[in-house]
């Protein structure tokens, strides 16, 4: 548990400290040095335009992790509001919002994101929009489920009978019960967002060059796969390591929470 969280924090630290750690400007083109193998000067080698891969990887963490955080957090906000409205808004609001959720789930999320980002035109903004509108549904389902079960929970009924205001009931009883399960969903969606950003980048619908983003780097590297295969390894490894760290942190969190629930 500790190790996994430490690993996840390491990635975040690398992203934050990129300007200090990166040996070169990630956008500095150096044609004479293109496609050079790893060496003392260029630890991981250079790409087709002679840019330092290590520097691009470090700056790329800012894009991949930062945007994934933004996207999963926006999804969390939208989904929680929709889910709670469905749980508490009465039969028809619930029906409408849940059918809307089903509609968004009627399509594999990442494929929908590819279509939306592609149709709206390849740019970072349309990528953020596309990944956000396809990422709120799980939060909504979880929030609705917890909301509905809380409504018949003894302590919520007691609070209502005591005459506690709806705001206080939300503050003291709903939000503390929702947070753990939503956090677990959030870690999963954070990891999915990293995968989504790199997939869209790889297809050319995401972060646009010359910004260093892991998926876009893979797209560039793919062309020179036969001559310099190592170029292709690093960005992929970065994606896998960060997704793995976040997923494992999420698993550990879920186990810790379910143990606490069992204690109760």
């Amino acid at each position, binding site marked *: 548990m500790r190790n996994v969280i430490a690993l996840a924090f390491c990635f975040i630290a690398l992203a934050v400290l990129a300007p200090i750690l990166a040996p070169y400007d990630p956008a500095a083109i150096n044609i004479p040095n293109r496609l050079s193998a790893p060496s003392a000067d260029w630890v991981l080698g250079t790409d087709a335009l002679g840019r330092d891969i290590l520097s691009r990887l470090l700056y790329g963490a800012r894009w991949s992790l930062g945007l994934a955080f933004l996207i999963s957090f926006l999804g969390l906000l939208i989904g929680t509001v929709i889910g709670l409205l469905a749980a508490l808004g009465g039969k028809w609001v619930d029906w409408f919002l849940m059918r809307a959720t089903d509609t968004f789930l009627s399509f594999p999320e990442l494929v929908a994101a590819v279509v939306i980002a592609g149709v709206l035109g390849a740019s970072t903004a349309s990528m953020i929009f596309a990944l956000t509108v396809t990422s709120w549904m799980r939060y909504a389902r979880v929030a609705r489920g917890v909301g509905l079960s809380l409504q018949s*929970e*003894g*302590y919520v*009924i*007691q*609070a*209502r*009978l*005591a*005459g*506690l*205001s709806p705001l*206080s009931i939300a503050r*003291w*009883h709903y939000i*503390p*019960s929702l947070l753990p399960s939503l956090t677990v969903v959030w870690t999963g969606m954070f990891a999915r967002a990293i995968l989504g950003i790199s997939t869209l980048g790889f297809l050319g619908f995401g972060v646009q060059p010359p910004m260093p983003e892991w998926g876009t780097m893979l797209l560039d590297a793919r062309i020179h796969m036969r001559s310099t295969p190592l170029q292709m390894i690093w960005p992929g490894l970065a994606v896998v390591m960060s997704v793995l760290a976040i997923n494992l942190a999420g698993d550990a969190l879920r186990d810790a929470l379910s143990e606490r629930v069992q*204690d*109760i």
Partner: protein
Amino acid sequence: MLTVENVAVRRANTLALEGITLSLAQGRTLAVVGESGAGKSTLIGAILGLVPCAAGEIAWAGEPVRTYRPSLVMQEPRRAFNPRLSLRRSVCEPLVAQGLPRDEARLSRLCQGLEIQPDLLDRLPSQVSIGQAQRVGILRALIASPPLVLFDEPLSALDAVTQKHTARLIAELQSEEGFAALIVTHDLGYAAAYADEIAVLKAGKIVEGGPTAAFIDRPQTEYGKSLRNAAFALGALEQVA
């Protein structure tokens, strides 16, 4: 004075309750006895305003019951408390909600009456026994001095000895505080020992009702008789020569 007149409650196209008429005066105890599925919990929900009535009137002193903030003691004591909050916080919730001052003297008097050690309130619900949790549940129900307290199977999660002990504590507090108690239970023994009146609920209707002694002595309906016989057969009531 609680009056329930000709109340009906609809649940998924069938009547969960029909033609319910009851009355309960200040300081008195009414037991509603019946088996699971008879509509006991629905009746409590209707009185508390949690379940809408399809017909009939429910009032306390001629006004809606909700304005008097009746309180409820639940069957599962642990589930009645937020697992993340200390028992003290939950107990004081009615006072906070209704803007009442926290009367430490009253709190410690009630704690004494319910045999609750003061430090117990600083624990979480998961850190106390079920019997203790139920006594704290009763404490919360009484803290804001409501005129009416509803008990939904208050003893069925407890073991036989704790049941009798808790029932005695409730009765003692009732004579001090003077609240009206409506007890819903499947245990005719408990009703016989502590209620002034008994109403028998079966399939959403009251099939028999009246003073406790008269009912135990001579139930009028077949169902009433079978309830009474079962209480003897299971040792809840005992005949002595």
